């Protein structure tokens, strides 16, 4: 580097030995790369998920021999981003990613967009070509800040090494506070090498730049409590925001439910905040939610949305969504309120803080007698919407995938496992049949719906929770999207388990083709599948295949008994569909249930919906 020569190693070592106190590292003798690693240590970072390359070599050299940070070498940058997401969701701490410029950054974009949609705290450090080469189409140059502008909560290109420390501190604060999300810090290679002679203080001291509103105004809390107290048919609809807000939010949600008696449903992202074994738990709502949850939403007179965002997968047809309810929406992101569903009372605030305020405001009141409402719910529950056919119509001897998930739950439940998933039918079956009692145990790609999320997320979760049983419930198609990460788990001896529901189809695509396109299975068959057992063995994993229902329990037990990582290739019925289902463009009251005929076509209006 012409402009900013790196201090020689000896110079640095002398410096360290002269000053035994940790504060010595804050002096101006550090290169950009050293400032970065020091900031990561100061932020309490344990793991950096990354992949080296030309534009991050100075940072990798800093990491060499630094025992304060553990670098996890993934096999593809998408894996790094998803692993960081898995770590973040399982631990509540921000995930940290380190990738090189150009393809390193673009490969990470899917994971960044995924974290943005699901509000996962993440800081992504990307290398960039030296400042003098920016804009010249240099080797491995990409406009990372431009590309990630709309899939990050905020992003930076750091051109002055003096700003690096303050930018990183701000990046961590933005990623982890308010509505969490990914923040990208793009650092040109010369900035990593240069030694700044001064440091610029953080901009965030200016309070108006970034100050999420945590507590709700008292009058809004009182109004919300009055509405709930007066409700005859209340329902709590909770989302990922409760989990992001931390374990205290989960505890307060349970307390508020206990004093109000309201039944609770949750989005895909919110599973675990309310215990699935509770009598007032309605199950997940939405497209593949339960009959009782969707009908309770439809018939409620007061709906309290806590940390959810009225996603189209939740609402179904908007003009028929919960038509008779007064709606309260608690969200830390003001733009979520009135975005798709107009509400009577929008409360901007942190779930945990606002739930605490509501409990305090509720005081010693008694709720309305909800007996009639609960009786109606019991009637809907009696429909047993998750009771799937015992046998596949086309292959009566095949294992039903729902059965496989139920057995997996039965045999692992007492170990309180962390479940990750890929995306598709298996994901919905896991959501429907697994059942969670605690938050941070369910890691899935909700908003973006990213196939290939589950295995790297399991790797991140296993690192964050080394003693936990971590299982990726997968499909044979999704798992191949980041199959290279098998090597990462092997390298770090992570005992993750992958349970593949193998139906030889992109099952959800096949299901939609049955519903919408008269069963024309265009490109949804998983042809030329690898032998997953041999593949597992090739990576030093254990491979187990289950083909008969009689082998199911033994196969799962063998998976649990193995010390190291295991792939279970569980062959399941190829024709099983995931129900209940609200078809595209339908209302909560128009669910398809097991036993309903559903093959055929749809009009263009319905086809156009996602």
């Amino acid at each position: 580097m012409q402009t900013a020569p790196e201090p020689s190693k000896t110079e640095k070592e002398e410096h360290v030995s002269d000053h035994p106190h940790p504060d010595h590292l804050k002096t101006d003798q550090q290169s950009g790369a050293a400032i970065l690693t020091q900031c990561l240590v100061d932020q309490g970072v344990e793991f950096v998920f990354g992949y080296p390359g030309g534009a991050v070599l100075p940072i990798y050299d800093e990491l060499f021999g630094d025992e304060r940070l553990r670098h996890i070498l993934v096999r593809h940058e998408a894996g790094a981003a998803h692993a960081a997401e898995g770590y973040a969701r399982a631990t509540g701490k921000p995930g940290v990613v380190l990738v090189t410029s150009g393809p390193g950054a673009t490969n990470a974009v899917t994971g960044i967009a995924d974290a943005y949609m699901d509000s996962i705290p993440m800081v992504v450090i990307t290398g960039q070509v030296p400042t003098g080469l920016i804009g010249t189409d240099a080797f491995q140059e990409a406009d990372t800040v431009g590309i990630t502008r709309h899939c990050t909560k905020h992003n930076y290109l750091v051109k002055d090494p003096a700003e690096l420390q303050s930018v990183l501190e701000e990046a961590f604060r933005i990623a982890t506070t308010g509505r969490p999300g990914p923040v990208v810090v793009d650092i040109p290679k010369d900035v990593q090498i240069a030694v700044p002679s001064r440091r610029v203080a953080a901009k965030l001291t200016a309070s108006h730049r970034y100050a999420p509103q945590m507590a709700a105004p008292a009058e809004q809390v009182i109004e919300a409590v009055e509405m709930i107290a007066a409700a005859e048919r209340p329902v709590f609809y909770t989302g990922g925001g409760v989990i992001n807000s931390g374990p205290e939010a989960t505890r307060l949600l349970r307390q508020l439910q206990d004093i109000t008696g309201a039944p609770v449903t949750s989005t895909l992202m919110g599973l675990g905040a309310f215990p699935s074994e509770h009598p007032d738990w309605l199950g997940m709502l939405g497209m593949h939610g339960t009959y009782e949850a969707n009908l309770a939403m439809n018939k409620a007179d007061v709906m309290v949305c806590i940390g959810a965002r009225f996603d189209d997968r939740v609402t179904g047809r908007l003009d028929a969504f919960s038509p008779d309810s007064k709606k309260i929406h608690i969200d830390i992101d003001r733009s979520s309120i009135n975005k798709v569903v107009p509400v009577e009372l929008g409360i901007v605030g942190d779930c945990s803080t606002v739930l605490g305020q509501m409990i305090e405001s509720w005081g010693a009141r008694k709720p309305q007698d909800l007996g009639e409402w609960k009786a109606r719910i019991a009637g809907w529950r009696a429909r047993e919407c998750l009771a799937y056919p015992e046998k596949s119509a086309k292959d009566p001897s095949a294992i039903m995938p729902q059965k496989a998930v139920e057995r997996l739950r039965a045999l692992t439940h007492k170990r309180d496992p962390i479940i990750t998933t890929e995306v598709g039918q298996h994901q919905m079956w896991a959501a429907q049949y697994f059942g969670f009692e605690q938050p941070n145990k369910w890691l899935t790609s909700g908003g973006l719906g990213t196939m290939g999320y589950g295995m790297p997320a399991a790797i991140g979760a296993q690192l964050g929770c080394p003693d936990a049983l971590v299982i990726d419930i997968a499909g044979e198609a999704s798992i191949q999207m980041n199959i290279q990460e098998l090597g990462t788990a092997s390298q770090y001896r992570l005992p993750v388990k992958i349970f593949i529901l193998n139906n030889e189809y992109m099952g959800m695509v096949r299901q939609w083709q049955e519903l919408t396109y008269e069963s024309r299975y265009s490109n949804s068959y998983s042809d030329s599948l690898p032998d997953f057992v041999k593949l597992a063995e090739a990576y030093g994993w254990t491979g187990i295949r289950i083909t008969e229902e009689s082998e199911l329990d033994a196969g799962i037990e063998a998976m649990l008994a193995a010390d190291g990582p295991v792939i279970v290739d569980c062959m399941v019925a190829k024709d099983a569909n995931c129900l209940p289902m609200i078809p595209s463009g339908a209302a909560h009251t128009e669910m398809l249930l097991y036993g309903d005929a559903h093959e055929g076509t749809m009009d263009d209006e319905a086809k156009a919906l996602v």
Partner: protein
Amino acid sequence: MKIAHDNAERHVLTVTVDNEPGILAKITGLFTARGYNIDSLTVADISADHAISRITIVTGGPPQVIDQIEAQLDRLVPVHGVVDLTTAGPHVERELALIKVTGTGEARVEALRVADIFRASVVDTTTESFVFELTGAPDKINSFVALMRELGLVEVGRSGIVGMLRGAEGS
């Protein structure tokens, strides 16, 4: 299959932001990505240390969309505040235009006469052209440009709208 279009109403928003690289791209990109309209956009830094910029955006949409635009802008980290002048109360909107007109004889005289009526000033002239500078509400500029079209209009440059609330209070 029909694609629905909503009835739009016009709103003028002022957005105060940190004057940092990429902020304009962030804001215009937000409008594109979420399908909002920009009718006009002006930006300049307004503080002595060049740290703060003020952006004035004229946009259109149904009330709930305008509310969303405000909320989406507000959630960007470098955005300090958003004010919807249209709902906030009485306000002034001004635009500056430069208008080049060529002509000789009666058309040239008429152009100068109309300019006088509109209180446009002549900022450049040759024996066969004028460049007029005109400040005012967009309607006034529209009317002036329409008249000049008949009198040898060559080129129009408009700044887009800058707006501010009336009265003693800052927004």
